[in-house]
């Protein structure tokens, strides 16, 4: 039996009230709010958060690979799943692959993981999807699109939701697109695109799945349909005789937004959070074709509830103004900080990747001092090269801090610098993120989050930052 053995999710803490965007440009507001990543977040950092949430109760050494799905990967050439594999400290033989270019890439990655495990090539594969798509300012897509990520650990033991089967089709259609040189997502005329793209493909694949598994619509407790809008999935359900009132899984469009390739997984995570053993879930995802799956929940589901998932992330939020939002998304050229541009070196980051990305410190074998970054000569007892490399906790509290307005980099007027004492030992000084003026205080409970520091050297420099602990 192969299926989902763990799940995790990530929704950025900041939410933009859609009415604020509508008020800025004129035009009708959509309902609700959308989640938006902070200026230092991208698809890779969000996916990393979801993956770490998913691994709350699994040892990373059991994971044989990472599949990362996104239409908004920060690089056109350079793999990013390898970075997540390094953060997780997976062996070099682990499979790492990026899936891209269609909102269906998440479920395509899941199919590939399933096929690999069924073929005996792997035991557990982490499949994660993240997106931060941009709609042009004053467009409805701007209001619709939200940022988020989810992760599913696919495996052949301790399965919480077995994958009974899938049915998959591909389709050549130019209904939604973004070329290499485009910043914003474009689309064809809506009525045609929805009818002949979304509806036709979803209908065909769902019908194929029901036929293949000999299941009736009544066999499912929940139907998870990724959707370009709120209405289409309801029309789709009615066409099969599903009952939207009892079977429809919330699309999260009104609370998080349309999260691109992550939407289907986020909805599935929300469904799994409420699922009981024996429940059957239909999952269908669209994008140049359709992947439809049937999942059967097992009694293992009760053992994987201790995580933030969708439920906790949804409740943990801060409001953001439209002015800050456009600042973070770099829609406007801003005055520079009149400070030097950040320096970087790919060589240094390569040499120190283990310590930097896996958050490994040194523990002195003689005096037990825990230090970060790794110190070859002990600060306390002076022993040389007598240390064990240990993984540090990602939780701690502020020993001291400052709000530095000289260091503002353009995306934000200030940077909060902390000194963080980590639980179980070690001290780290990673910049604070998501920290509002006046929010930092001595002893504030904090946690580390993997973020983009800067683009010095012409590439993305990632490292751990510190943020107020999310409830």
């Amino acid at each position, binding site marked *: 039996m192969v299926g989902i053995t763990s799940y995790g999710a990530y929704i950025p803490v900041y939410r933009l009230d859609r009415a604020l965007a509508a008020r800025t440009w004129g035009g009708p507001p959509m309902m609700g709010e959308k989640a938006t990543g902070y200026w230092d977040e991208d698809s890779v950092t969000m996916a990393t958060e979801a993956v770490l949430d998913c691994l709350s109760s699994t040892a990373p050494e059991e994971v044989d690979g990472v599949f990362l799905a996104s239409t908004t990967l920060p690089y056109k050439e350079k793999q990013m799943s390898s970075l997540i594999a390094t953060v997780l400290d997976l062996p070099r033989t682990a499979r790492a692959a990026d899936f891209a270019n269609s909102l269906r890439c998440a479920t395509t990655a899941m199919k590939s993981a399933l096929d690999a495990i069924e073929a005996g090539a792997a035991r557990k594969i982490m499949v994660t999807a993240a997106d931060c798509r941009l709609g042009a300012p004053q467009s409805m897509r701007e209001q619709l699109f939200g940022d988020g990520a989810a992760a599913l650990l696919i495996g052949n033991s301790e399965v919480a939701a077995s994958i009974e089967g899938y049915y998959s089709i591909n389709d050549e259609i130019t209904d939604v697109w973004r070329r290499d040189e485009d910043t914003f997502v474009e689309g064809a005329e809506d009525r045609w695109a929805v009818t002949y793209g979304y509806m036709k493909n979803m209908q065909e694949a769902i019908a194929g799945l029901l036929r293949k598994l000999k299941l009736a619509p009544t066999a499912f407790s929940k139907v998870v349909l990724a959707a370009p809008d709120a209405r289409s999935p309801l029309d789709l359900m009615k066409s099969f005789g599903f009952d939207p009132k009892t079977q429809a899984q919330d699309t999260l469009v009104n609370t998080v937004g349309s999260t691109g390739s992550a939407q289907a997984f986020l909805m599935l995570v929300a469904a799994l959070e409420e699922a009981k053993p024996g429940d059957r879930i239909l999952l269908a995802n669209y994008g140049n074709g359709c992947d439809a799956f049937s999942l059967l929940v097992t009694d293992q589901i009760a053992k994987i509830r201790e995580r933030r998932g969708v439920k906790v992330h949804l409740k943990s939020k801060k409001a953001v103004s439209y002015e800050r939002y456009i600042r973070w998304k770099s829609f406007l050229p801003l005055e520079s900080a009149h400070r030097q541009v950040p320096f970087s070196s790919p060589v240094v980051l390569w040499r120190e990747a283990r310590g930097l990305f896996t958050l490994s410190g040194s523990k002195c074998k003689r005096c037990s001092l825990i230090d970060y970054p790794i110190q070859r000569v002990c600060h306390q007892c002076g022993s040389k090269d007598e240390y064990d490399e240990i993984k540090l906790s990602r939780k701690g509290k502020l020993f*001291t801090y400052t709000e530095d*307005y000289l260091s503002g980099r353009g995306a934000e007027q200030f*940077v909060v610098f902390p000194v963080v004492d980590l639980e179980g030992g070690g001290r780290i000084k990673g910049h604070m993120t998501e920290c509002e003026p006046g929010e930092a205080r001595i002893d504030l409970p904090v946690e580390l989050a993997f973020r983009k520091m800067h683009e010095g050297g012409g590439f993305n420099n990632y490292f751990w930052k510190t943020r107020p602990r999310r409830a």
Partner: protein
Amino acid sequence: MSIKDKVAIIGMGCTKFGENWEMSLNDMIIEAAYEAFQDAGIGSKDIQAAWLGTQQYGGAGMALADPLKLHEIPVTRVENFCATGSDAIRNACFGIASGMYDIVLALGVEKLKDWGLRGLPENPGTAHPVLDQGVTGPGQFALSAVRYMHTFKIDRTPMAQIAVKNHHNGNLNPKAHFHRELTVEQVLNAPMIAWPFGLFDCCTVADGASAAILCRADMAKSFRKDYMLIKGIGLSASPENRSPHFDYLGFPATVGAARQAYKQAGIKNPLEEIDCAEVHDCFSWTEISNYEDLGFAEKGKGWRLIMDGVTTLQGKLPVNMDGGLKCFGHPVGASGIRMHYELWKQFQGKAGPRQIKDPHIGLTHTLGAVVSGVTIVGTP
């Protein structure tokens, strides 16, 4: 071994500190050096070795040799964060004390205002790509000030008093960067730079140069009667600031440098035995920490010295008579030698309206958070 009474300063020079838009690095070097040559009654050809203290400019010893045309003598560039000027003096002292040279030059200079940057640059060529990014001078010292305020339960008022005192002193000094009295309210209400430091809690980013001519103590009398003797020199690097147990309440580097200098000079009770001090007030709180780290007060009680007026021009131990880094300015490599320049003028009774009463023993102190230099000087 002690350096005490082996080396004398016989001439000093110092440019105006501040926004020296119309002067180049070389112009300032020449102005400070020639003031010192004239003061000592010597010429550049009398110099047998020279040390250049500069933190940002990487042009090696040649950056000093070329503008002054010092031919075929050893010229060395010294860099040690904000203790750079102190370390140039220290190296010059040992050049003399070793018996190798009779007359040497120590010169500190910094040209910071040509680049249009806010605050000090961050050494991009050597900073770590992610561990050292975006860390500013004010931010670094603010981490300690926040912890200090929390631990010893003080507000920003004593720090503001430091700024008020140093601006008062600097206002009496024609060579200072700023000539403006401040009030406590102005300091407290200034725009925030790095909590708890507002604009007036921070020293100035300035251009400037300062120079000292040093010689064998037994030769000094042949140049002038009012020379100045080196009584003790300490320099201390302190990686302790980076240890995971560091308390962020002060600077072990200062404690170490002071201990060395006091031992050489034979000073046991600095508050009683030192007549005046020029200390590293890069930020208002730093001066409070300096009082404690230099042994003028117990840890946690330094702020009382400023509140009680002990360190004003009229106080028991005047500190930063020339305005300090805060008001006189902080061209990094020049500061350590500039401090000696003020004691030089004070000892000779040439400090004008800021002259204190009959000083004989003085202290200079520079601090780059993890490195500090302390020098004790005295009248013959």
